[in-house]
């Protein structure tokens, strides 16, 4: 009886190992998909939050003094008290980043890493060109006020990002992918911190 049971266990072993392998593979795939989502979410959130804050694009505005919520940006009347946009920026950034993270789990890793490179380089170049345009406008002997437009500085940023993401090797894009996860929040904080300089220079 014992031998029969042992025999039975030995026979069923290969089948069980297949089941276990399949289960492990499924859990690894799920973990890997969550990793793709989490990394994309982090990068996208940092970029989008910085953008929404700088452009002041909240999903909603909260007026704490009168406990009222308004859709999008609504400064309200003076007697409504101070408006709060922060909640609206956070919720909008989180929602958009979650959608992007979900999309990221459905595309090929190679394509995702290249797209991430494009977005991150563009996010870095755009404010850099915008700042440069400001310096040129200040120092130029001709009227260069048109350079102050956000959209004008977006053109070289777009070209630069397209060039970088086209020419970098897949290996570099792969290695840089998790690196953006740290560079984007730090870059965002530099921009957001600089925007607060009026408080520190009074």
């Amino acid at each position, binding site marked *: 009886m014992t031998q029969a049971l042992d025999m039975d266990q030995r026979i069923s072993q290969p089948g069980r190992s297949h089941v276990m392998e399949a289960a492990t593979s499924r859990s690894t795939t799920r*973990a890997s998909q*969550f*990793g793709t*989502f*989490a*990394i994309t*979410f*982090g990068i996208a*959130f*940092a970029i989008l*939050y910085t953008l929404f*804050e700088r452009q002041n694009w909240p999903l909603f505005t*909260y007026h*704490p*003094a009168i406990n009222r919520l308004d859709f999008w940006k609504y400064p309200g009347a003076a007697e409504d*008290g*101070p408006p*709060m946009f*922060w*909640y609206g*920026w*956070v919720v909008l*950034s989180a929602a958009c*980043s979650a959608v992007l993270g979900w999309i990221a789990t459905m595309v090929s890793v190679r394509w995702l890493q290249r797209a991430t490179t494009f977005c991150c380089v563009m996010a870095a170049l755009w404010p850099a060109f915008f700042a440069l345009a400001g310096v040129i406008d200040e120092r130029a002997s001709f009227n260069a006020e048109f350079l102050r437009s956000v959209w004008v500085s977006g053109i070289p940023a777009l070209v630069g990002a397209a060039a970088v993401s086209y020419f970098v090797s897949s290996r570099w894009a792969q290695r840089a992918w*998790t*690196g953006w*996860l*740290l560079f984007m*929040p*730090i870059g*965002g*904080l530099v921009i*957001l*911190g600089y925007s*607060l300089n*009026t*408080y*520190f220079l*009074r």
Partner: protein
Amino acid sequence: MDILFGTISVPTFWKILLFVHFALAIVLLAAVTLQAVAILMPVRQAAGNFINRFSPVPAASYATLIVLLYLPQALMGAWIYVKYRTYVRIPMEGFRHWWTVGSFEFKEHVVTMGLALLPAYWYFWQQPLSEEHAVARKWVTIFLAFTVWYSFVVGHVANDFRGVGS
């Protein structure tokens, strides 16, 4: 809430909430600091001075605790932020405490960036630890520790202006 406010006054409720926020911040601060130290000094040594013999709990065991503390802390901070905006920031501006206002404004961005990295942070610390993500894991952890330290210090300064015991 009405039942609660029947028992305690509104200012007392907010002070209790602020104190809980502070107490949880201490726990979070300890956890992120120990984890950051553990990844910066991973080698365990039996001999040497106190610092060298310092052998913290394996860094991975803190990750879930940190996520479970960071998230409610951020939510609680977001709730208290309503009172800060109306009852603290306005007088702070009146007294021209611009550095405190600016630092607190920056705090909201710092905490938000920490929140953004939280899912990736949790993923990086899942067992078995991936060698591929070792560098990212280290720096994301240090960044998170920075966000907690910065928020704690600035929050404490704001509390000193108008908060518990001020």
